[in-house]
């Protein structure tokens, strides 16, 4: 599988982080945008990350990318020292998967995203990406519990469950697949990757396993595998 090049990934990250801005600066109350920033501990400045508009994802358009990025970030939020969906580039993983292995789910995603948008506009008079994180969590809860209205195929619960599953895949699948950027997902939980051997001493260890390197399909990463 070809990995996305850096510029494309950068576009998707920008689309994600600058979710508010992506839809047009004039539509986003500054207070909400700033609040978003603080909540996520992010360093991004929305105005500086407005996408040029000349690039496209493997599957998602700009608006879809922004919604997926915001949604998956609520499932696995990023925080200092705790990589989440944004840090792991879960959006990139899902975008690539839908253009390849999960192509049969393209319609599932298109319809699910349209229903999500319609539900948010009907309920909050706003698109999902413009809601505060607390409101976004309300939406996720409504989907998870099957209480969000307007979904047919997929049902809101199906849509939530697939998004959760794909977020976890993007967090923890080998970086070859476009997520788990720099092994951030594995570092989060202390997984050392596909080690070929564990020794008898390893098996007796009651502490965190920290031997380097982490082992991936193509890359060998430097840095501690385990966490306290």
């Amino acid at each position, binding site marked *: 599988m070809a990995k996305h090049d850096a510029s494309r990934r950068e576009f998707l990250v920008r689309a994600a982080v600058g979710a508010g801005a992506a839809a047009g600066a004039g539509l986003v109350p500054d207070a909400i945008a700033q609040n978003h920033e603080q909540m996520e501990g992010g360093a991004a400045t929305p105005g500086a990350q407005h996408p040029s508009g000349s690039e496209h994802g493997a599957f998602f358009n700009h608006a879809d990318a922004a919604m997926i990025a915001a949604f998956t970030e609520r499932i696995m939020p990023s*925080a200092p020292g705790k990589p989440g969906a944004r840090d792991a580039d879960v959006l990139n993983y899902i975008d690539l998967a839908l253009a390849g292995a999960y192509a049969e789910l393209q319609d599932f995603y298109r319809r699910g995203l349209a229903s999500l948008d319609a539900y948010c506009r009907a309920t909050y008079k706003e698109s999902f990406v413009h809601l505060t994180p607390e409101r976004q969590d309300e939406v996720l809860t409504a989907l998870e519990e099957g209480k969000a209205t307007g979904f047919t195929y997929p049902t809101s619960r199906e849509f939530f469950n697939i998004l959760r599953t794909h977020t976890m895949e993007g967090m923890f699948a080998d970086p070859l697949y476009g997520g788990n950027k720099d092994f951030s997902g594995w570092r989060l939980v202390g997984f050392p990757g596909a080690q070929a051997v564990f020794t008898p001493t390893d098996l007796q260890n009651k*502490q965190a396993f920290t031997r380097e390197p982490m082992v991936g399909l193509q890359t060998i990463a430097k840095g501690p595998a385990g966490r306290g």
Partner: protein
Amino acid sequence: MATEKTDVVIVGMGAVGGILAAELGKAGMKVVGLERGPRLTTADFNPHDELRYFQRQELRPNWKRQPVTWRPNASATAHPMTILNYGNQAGGGTVHYGTLSWRMHEDDFRARSHTIERYGASVIPEDSSLADWPLSYADLEPFYDQAEYELGVSGKAGNLQGKKIDGGNIFEAPRKRDYPLPPLLDDQSGVLFAEGARKLGYHPFSSPRAIISQPYHDRASCTYCGFCQSFGCHVGAKSSILVTKLPEADATGNFKLLTGTMCYHVKTDNSGRATGVSYYGPDGSDNTIEAEIVILSPFIYDNTRLLLLSKTDKFPNGLANSSGQLGKHVMAHIMAKVFVAYDDRFVNIYMGPSAQKHTLDDFNADNFDHKGVGFIRGAQISVSPADLEAGPIGTAMSLDPPPGTPKWGAAYRDFLAKYFTRYAALNAQTENLAYADQTIDLDPNLRDQYCMPAPRVTYDWRRPNERARVEFLMQKMEGIGHAMGATKVWRGALSPGVPGAHHEGGTRMGSDPKTSVVNRYGQTWDIPNLFVIGSSTFPSMSGFNPTLTIQALAYMSADAIAKRYKNKPGPLV
């Protein structure tokens, strides 16, 4: 379109097919094996990739192209099951299984008689079709032994010719000799499990597994990498059919393997004899093999489906179905789970062979007094990762967070970050009873990639006897969790009725042609040159993983065919 002739055609080259191919080939019979998947090699399994093999199930049938549907009862709508827990390549499920290799208990072979003798007939649920096997443990013991030694199983005897041995499974049936290989090394979850269980007076032991703990038959030993369940072994230490029997079959010079082939029909003639099979080639071609003996050994669904689809005027209800029992008495294990987690230490459960690492057999079979407990038969209790493999994707999918912790958001992230390396799962693998209304038939609404009707399973484990057993075991596992010194102990969610692992039944064996489909050799009562061998013939399932018993039955059938049937074709019983 090709037609060829052979002595024996075997459909499905997994746990059964590989053994029969090698053994019948050695006996001088020409064997053709049909396998719908590819033939992979050990080199294909390096490096390990959790997304590809666990999450996307590359070594299992694709549930969209080869669907099997499930419904909880006959009035519900059936939908495809999204996990098909069996193989889709030469070597079958043994390529990616967890390798648990059990001999069933003596009373497992006579569960009905034993239950009546000890507790009276009234304790058997009225609607259950619990039945004895048409053979005893003693009949199968030499073939269990052969399987353990030829394939390579690591473990410690707990009952050597009647002498109980501490550290092995003291509840096991007597064995003539010890395992060929010593037990695999303990990991920390096994150590904790064993310590906790002993405090409560139970008898834990390292589970017997078909992974070689020392070099054996020119194969390298286990590296404890942890990628077993769902994965092929990257050093060939897993004693899969791929690295054991298929090379033996090749060496006979009498074996031909046809990969990418899908058998869709068993041919019979007007005399009621099987004459061969029809299959689709990888290029879509329609081909025929004429054979003196037809052996069906795919996973259970395709046995019932093929026999139903091959009906003729002479066999209007499907082949080998004069009893009307074809497709009935389906069983499956479910895994009831209790999770344990530690604040004061790490467990690192991703190390070492991943599935059901340590076991206690105290609550399996009739190893404990069932008086007053409200159910019959038991379960194997073991310690494992949440989904029998220990990578972070599987853990995120199957490690239910404790009550009060959500499944997403910052609190979930922090839960997973802290406990991924500090948790273990206790599993109760339950001996669910057979019921005649748990069935396999043909789904009228869905066809697979070959345009064949999908097999449809009607099954719901949530019956009074089974629910009472699960509740009993959940409480036992909570007790073990606390005895293990865990900081947190909580129950996992139960499945919504869907069959779990190790589906069995559909072509039940018995001693009476009126109430069973095959005899003890897997020979169909109705068509003596048509055999069905595998877990679809199990009359009852025990709380143990079925593979070693399947393999022992394959050796027994091969022995009977080579020594008796070959010289004098006809009924073996």
